């Protein structure tokens, strides 16, 4: 199998506070990894280190055989291959849905506008929002916004998708539609790392679940192993809280 | 961005044409004088939007003698000397009194006008000063940097308020915040004619005179200006005498 990402002994501090204390992870093509763990445990920070929204102090991040750190010269090109979906959507409010989608393809990948628009229509169809193509983000529900955000990331044809608590900011009744899109994506063979508390989703889609706590991977295993028979005490108490 | 850079370069090139030796003025084809056209009848803006006046006619004469066009750069009075020093203008022709202080930084032509000062007061009041000393203990408004400013500032007991424009000084007099205005006689005459509620209570011969300002060290231009002025002072009779008697000597 093709190795997409390898993280070795990753350390990250904010000032004197060490958030990641040696994280190791490998992910292969087509895998979906769900990261769980208490808030403040370093899950989001870990995700943000992968596409270098955050710098790190030591360790290695190797994406498709190339190291990602502050010396990486083609960082922007690498980022086009790593899609990211944020908790608060971060859609561009001054642009319509279509403009949100075609901005990066036309400006970064330099594909023609016509081609980008065609592509946007296909992807919007896929996330079920083709009728909102000319709407502005302010006029969308939270669930619709997050589906547009996923569509926007997909426009760049990423090799890897990072989801940073994609449903945490949503009203409960809107969570389902976003998870549906994500499941669909996972089944289509996308390689994904998802930080979430949605254990139902994890159970159904994840190849592996990783429990990050206090800056380290406290436990790792298949959904079965983790959810039915957690070895770590902290994993147990965490699961008891959220289930 | 390129357009802006180009514009800037053009401005620089236009700018560097200035700086006025006699040869340069002739090559450039125009004499640039600086004046403050808020000083009628010496210089002011006419109803046709032209700067006119006694000084302007003198400047025109100098330009004519040089065989070049006259360009008038209007500037506030206290900006005239800096403008001359930084080569913005060739001459100051602005009813400027020759003073020791000014003569340290610029050269002056021979005097061309006596700067007699008028004391102007409100006509309906008893206060009628006839000499500068009568103003002691009084409040007086003047135009900043003018001869009037110089003469009243010499007397410690006078409280002086200085204005950029003499019209503002008169406004102060009208509002009764000062007791008198001291300014050049010619200017005072014009004003009092329009507003008879003010009267000239005295005209003082200060011994101060107007001169044309030339950049320090520009002797060539200074000599030329002086020759034009002295020729203007000569009557047709003087010229005849010169023609028929002095040249044959």
């Amino acid at each position, binding site marked *: 199998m093709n190795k997409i990402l390898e993280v070795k002994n990753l350390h990250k501090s904010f000032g004197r506070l060490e958030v990641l204390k040696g994280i190791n992870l490998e992910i292969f093509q087509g895998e979906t990894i769900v990261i769980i763990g208490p808030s403040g445990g370093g899950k989001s920070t870990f995700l943000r280190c992968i596409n270098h929204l955050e710098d790190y102090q030591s360790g290695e991040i190797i994406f498709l055989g190339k190291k990602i750190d502050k010396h990486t010269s083609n960082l922007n090109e690498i980022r086009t291959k790593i899609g990211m979906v944020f908790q608060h959507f*971060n859609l*561009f409010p001054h642009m319509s849905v279509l403009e949100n989608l075609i901005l990066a393809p036309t*400006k970064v990948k330099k594909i023609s506008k016509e081609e980008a628009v065609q592509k946007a229509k296909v992807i919007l169809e896929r996330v079920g929002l083709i009728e909102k193509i000319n709407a502005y983000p302010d006029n969308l529900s939270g669930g619709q916004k997050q589906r547009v955000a996923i569509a926007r990331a997909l426009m*760049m044809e990423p090799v890897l998708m990072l989801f940073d608590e994609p449903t945490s900011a949503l009203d409960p009744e809107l969570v389902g539609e976003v998870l549906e899109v994500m499941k669909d994506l996972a089944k289509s063979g996308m390689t994904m790392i998802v930080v979430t508390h949605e254990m139902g989703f994890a159970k159904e889609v994840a190849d592996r679940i990783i429990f990050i706590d206090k800056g380290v991977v406290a436990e790792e295993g298949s959904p079965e192993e983790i959810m039915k028979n957690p070895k770590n005490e902290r994993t147990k108490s965490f699961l008891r809280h959220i289930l | 961005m390129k357009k802006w850079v180009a514009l800037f370069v053009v401005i620089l090139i236009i700018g560097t044409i200035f700086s006025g030796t006699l040869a340069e003025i002739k090559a450039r084809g125009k004499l640039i004088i600086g004046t403050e056209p808020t000083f009628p009848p010496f210089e002011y803006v006419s*109803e046709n939007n032209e700067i006119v006046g006694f000084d302007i006619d003198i400047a025109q004469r100098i330009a004519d003698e040089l065989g070049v066009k006259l360009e008038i750069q209007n500037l*506030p009075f206290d*900006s005239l000397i800096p403008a001359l020093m930084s080569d913005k203008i060739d001459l100051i022709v602005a009813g400027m009194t020759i003073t020791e202080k000014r003569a340290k930084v610029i050269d002056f032509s021979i005097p061309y006008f006596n700067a007699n000062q008028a004391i102007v007061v409100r006509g309906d009041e008893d206060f009628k000063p006839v000499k500068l000393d009568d103003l002691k203990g009084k409040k007086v408004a003047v135009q900043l940097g003018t001869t009037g400013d110089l003469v009243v500032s010499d007397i410690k007991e006078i409280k002086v308020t200085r204005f950029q*424009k003499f019209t503002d000084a008169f406004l102060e007099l009208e509002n009764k915040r000062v007791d008198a205005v001291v300014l050049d006689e010619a200017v005072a005459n014009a004003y009092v004619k*329009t507003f008879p509620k003010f009267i000239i209570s005295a005209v003082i011969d200060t011994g101060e005179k107007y001169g044309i300002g030339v950049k320090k060290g520009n002797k060539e231009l200074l000599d030329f200006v002086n020759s034009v002025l002295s020729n203007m002072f000569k009557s047709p009779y003087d010229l005849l005498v010169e023609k028929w008697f002095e040249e044959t000597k």
Partner: protein
Amino acid sequence: MEAISVVITNLPFLLLGAWDTLKLTFFSVLIGLVLGTFIGMGRLSKIKVINIPSTVYVEFLRGTPLLVQISIVYFGLPQLGIQLQAYPAAIVALGLNSGAYIAEIVRAGIQSIPKGQYEAARSLGLTHWQAMRYIILPQAFKNILPALGNEFITLTKDSSLASVIGVTELMRRGQFVITRTFQTFSIYFGIALIYFVMTFTISRIVRYVEKRMAVA
């Protein structure tokens, strides 16, 4: 009434000055906007050779009187061999000055945009400049439009200082009329009225643009 008729007969003359005032302000704001945008971004840069000069620029131009700045550009630059005519000199000085104020407005505007907008842009592969140009600045400008309108109005009034180097804008032309007619009070009042009409119109236009952008 003579006082009123003096203003009316000289209105065309004064309006030419008002037109000059508007042009002076417009071009100065234009320079200020370009300059202020870059310096405003420079103020937020983590790179010291960009950040420090930007800060020094803003502090220096805000900390010295505009009158002095105009005089330096017009009278001082010739010492360095740069001769500017009065009008371009006034535009340069006013533009440099408003650049400092607009830089602070732009800085605040950029800071008002949530960090996630920038991160989302970068995560899609946009460069820093692309993120600024397409995502941050358009939103920032929408937010700072009222402040920019204020700066425009302030500059309209401050442009009267250009009269010290002989720019015949509204104030200067007013002085010319006063020395011709001696109608000090009514001309000053007329000038004030013209300034008010200009600034009021500008603030209306800004408000209109604001509303239109709010809809979009």
